[in-house]
């Protein structure tokens, strides 16, 4: 019997008698006669008789084995348990995991439950409920397959999930995703433990430690990093430096300035990028001077250059002629990518790193709107505006973002103007959520849904009422235009997850199958009805989910 079986308390005599039987059976009674058996025709039967008695005796004599070392109990979860209805809902959402075979490709009218899991988790976390222990394996499996679920899933799963993850290699990701691998991080006062973990810990543990301290006490994290900075490997320096991005402040400047002289180019570039996000830093001031030297107002030439009325100002751009050592030290990359002129490449980097606040003073006290509206001579507008966009995103400057976005209803907002959709989405992210929603609503009202997906993705959930109405109206127009709903499946999916559930009642009118118009695609009407049914069904389900968690 192997070691994992229960102990059989047989005397050694009985044990060896059984061994003899097994040996005789393996070799055959023709070659080996078991003890106490007469050889001959009856030997196999006698052997089987004896083995049957031994087998039943051995089984009947099984006794428990000594227990192995007990597990350290999981840390208590002080959060209140889920209401029963919410616990049932969670079981349903988790039962709909992808990878479970079956189900057809077409979506039909039923809600996509897995897509609702992120919301459910966010709501449960907002209420501060504890996860039922028995769902943790399914929850960890779901989070294992979808990295975007992990932060919310692990927050909800709580301390017991980390306890479990230490027992099952499939769930190691949970330890990596949680600061300190789930072990309690040293508290602020435990300087000795902090020092020990920082000196001896694994790289991932050190990154987590640094991030945790940075969140708690930004200066202390920087000081800790400085103690070992000179001895870290280049790729580690890069990661550690990057963790200063969170809670970046003016006090970090001296350290970052020193990092500009780092041996590694990537470290230098990151230090420069961080410094340029500090508008009052010396680097930002140097960049402001450099960028300012490249862009100037010209009143005299305006008539010839832009063809506008006399006296109207024009921006004239004079890109740098060289990338000097000072620029390189401040993070400007000298070598342009293939296909780009190096002068415009340098200009872009200077303008991107220069503090946006410096332009107004340099350009006659104009507001960002006025500056963006200025005509630009010699086709430099694209390059200049793109650099300003990057600067607005990096410096999270809402005034400049608003100016660069322009009015959502302008025709160029819908087309591939100077500012791409991806850049617009990034600019929108610097605005507050109400303004963001209003801009996207205006955009959809003018340009429809075909370009809206990326912009909707940055809007706060649930969508503000004007935005929700704009999306529903646009879907309705698309239906009336006779196209198929799957051209809009991306937006539909977003609407299912993001529309305010209270809008469900307003959608009831769209559930019926409309009369087919002459130029409509065949059968489109019933597919639209199906899509709207799924939308309404999902909204009602979300309302029910929210209600269950409130009880």
């Amino acid at each position: 019997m192997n070691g994992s079986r229960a102990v059989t308390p047989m005397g050694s005599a009985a044990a060896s008698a059984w061994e003899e039987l097994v040996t005789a059976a393996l070799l055959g009674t023709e070659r080996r006669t078991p003890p106490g058996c007469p050889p001959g025709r009856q030997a196999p039967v006698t052997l089987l008789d004896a083995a049957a008695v031994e087998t039943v005796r051995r089984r009947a004599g099984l006794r428990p084995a000594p227990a192995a070392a007990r597990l350290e109990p999981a840390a208590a979860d002080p959060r209140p348990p889920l209401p029963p209805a919410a616990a049932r809902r969670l079981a349903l959402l988790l039962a709909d995991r992808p990878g479970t075979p079956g189900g057809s490709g077409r979506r039909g009218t039923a809600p996509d439950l897995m897509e609702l899991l992120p919301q459910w988790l966010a709501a449960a976390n907002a209420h501060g409920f504890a996860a039922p222990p028995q769902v943790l394996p399914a929850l960890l499996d779901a989070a294992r397959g979808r990295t975007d679920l992990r932060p919310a899933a692990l927050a909800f799963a709580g301390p017991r999930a980390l306890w479990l993850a230490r027992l099952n290699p499939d769930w190691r990701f949970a330890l990596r995703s949680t600061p300190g691998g789930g072990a309690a991080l040293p508290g602020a006062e435990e300087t000795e433990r902090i020092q020990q973990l920082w000196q001896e810990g694994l790289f991932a543990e050190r990154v987590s430690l640094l991030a945790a301290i940075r969140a708690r006490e930004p200066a202390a994290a920087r000081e800790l990093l400085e103690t070992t900075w000179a001895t870290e490997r280049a790729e580690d320096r890069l990661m550690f430096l990057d963790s200063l991005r969170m809670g970046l402040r003016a006090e970090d400047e001296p350290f970052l300035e020193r990092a500009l002289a780092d041996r590694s180019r990537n470290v230098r570039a990151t230090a420069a990028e961080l410094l340029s996000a500090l508008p009052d830093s010396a680097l930002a001031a140097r960049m402001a001077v450099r960028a300012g030297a490249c862009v100037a107002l010209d009143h005299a030439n305006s008539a010839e250059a832009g063809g506008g009325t006399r006296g109207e100002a024009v921006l004239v751009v004079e890109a740098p002629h060289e990338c000097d050592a000072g620029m390189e030290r401040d993070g400007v990359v000298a070598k342009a990518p293939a296909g780009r002129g190096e002068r415009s490449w340098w200009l872009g980097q200077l303008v991107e790193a220069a503090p946006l606040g410096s332009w107004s003073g340099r350009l006659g006290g104009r507001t960002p709107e006025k500056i963006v509206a200025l005509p630009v001579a010699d086709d430099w507008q694209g390059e200049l505006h793109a650099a300003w966009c990057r600067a607005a995103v990096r410096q999270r400057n809402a005034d400049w973002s608003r100016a660069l976005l322009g009015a959502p209803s302008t025709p160029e907002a819908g087309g591939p103007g100077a500012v791409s959709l991806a850049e617009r989405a990034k600019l929108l992210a610097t605005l507050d959520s109400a303004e963001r929603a209003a801009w996207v609503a205006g955009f959809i009202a003018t340009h429809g849904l075909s370009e809206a997906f990326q912009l909707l993705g940055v809007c706060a959930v649930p969508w503000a009422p004007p935005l929700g109405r704009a999306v529903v109206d646009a879907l309705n127009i698309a239906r009336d235009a006779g196209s198929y709903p799957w051209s809009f499946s991306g937006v539909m999916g977003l609407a299912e997850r993001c529309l305010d559930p209270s809008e469900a009642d307003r959608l009831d009118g769209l559930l019926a199958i409309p009369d087919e118009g002459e130029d409509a695609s065949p059968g489109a009407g019933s597919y639209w009805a199906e899509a709207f049914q799924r939308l309404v069904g999902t909204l009602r389900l979300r309302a029910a989910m929210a209600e269950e968690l409130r009880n």
Partner: protein
Amino acid sequence: MDRCEDRLSVPGSTFDVMTQQGVRWTADQVLALAPDVSSRKAGSKLGASGPWSEAGSSDEGTVWGLCKGSGSKPYQTVVDIADATGPAYKCSCPSRKFPCKHALGLLLLWAGGDGAVPRGEAPGWAEEWLTGRRKRAEEKRAAGPAGSPSGDPEAARRRAERRAERITAGATELEQRLADLLRGGLATAEQAGYGLWEETAARMVDAQAPGLAARVRELGAIPASGPGWPVRLLEECALLHLLDRGWLRRDELPDGLAATVRSRIGVPGSAEGPPVRDHWLVLAQYETADARLTTRRIWLHGAESGRTALLLSYGAAGRAPELALPVGLAFEAEVSAYPGAGQLRAALGERFTPPAPTEVRPPGTTTTCAAERYGEALRADPWLDSFPVTLDRVMPVPVGGSWQLADADTDLALPLAPSAVAHPGLWRLVALSGGGPVTVFGECGHRGFTPLTAWPEGVVGQAVPLC
């Protein structure tokens, strides 16, 4: 030997909860009814109010609704969960799955309890089907259990005799094959491979001894089952030999043991035991399947009688067996035992209440007593692989690549069966325990302990199915 007394987990258990009619099931309990994984998935997608209209439920345990499908006319779905012979389903969809995804979705919607399935009067189409069903059930009950198909007892006796003769011939042939095997040595079995055993199994099927055939087929798999196979093969050969001898000399055996032998050989019997009326807690439900047959095993615990009973239900390959009971719920019913010493198998008779939530838990015991019970049970049925027990205050503990269930209050532990270590249910058990004690129902046998259901320690908590 110290006496193994059961420790009652819920002293003075009451059945107040049983009177709450129309208590809703949990999603897990509904999904357990699904015939396969794809129905499970399709059903859970329909468990939202979107496609449903005019849904409702009655206090008598009926749920109905209209489900929008791909056609113009919605499907009419009705489920009777109070039916005495198990949940009954009716749906106008063309699916041959049973229950279909619409019935599952409707039950999930009902279980979700968010007002999508209000109390109400059943519509005409549902009422019609219900009355028809209940009338037929009434007639069947009135007709009584005396429904023996062939009226001629003399013919039946002759058939039984002919069958016994064929089994005897089969058992004799099998004895010969076992003797040949042992004479040449088990080592030859490794080379002979599957074919030899398959052929022998087919001979046993011809001999109308399905129990022997199944055991022979299992012998065929042992030589490839990893280290220690000669020991396992000798054990199983010896027990098969014991069963052969038991059949050939059944006239000399006490009645109970002879009945056990007949049942192990696979001679069909009928549940002749007196009906025991009790509140039966559903301890566990799980399926095993081979290429031909799906077997569903349902363990019940009688709250008043203290008895443990096993219900078996079969489905043709790929189809779910019809009988399904949600784990953790209890219902009042009559159960009759099948013959045979140490046999726990029973047949479900009349049911008096639908399954409803309960606070009853099976009384638990220690690992030492669990092992002892299995040993005791072997006395009546030496072919028993495992015996159902509830362990009280145990905790899962990893040991090497395997796991144990350790007593919280002693230094002893039962190893988990290898199949249980590989099963995902293990992690639900570990998660529920969190390093602390839990109550675990399962099967304790010579391969180790197989956990089937667990309850959290202390305060009332739902049963967590592990299988």
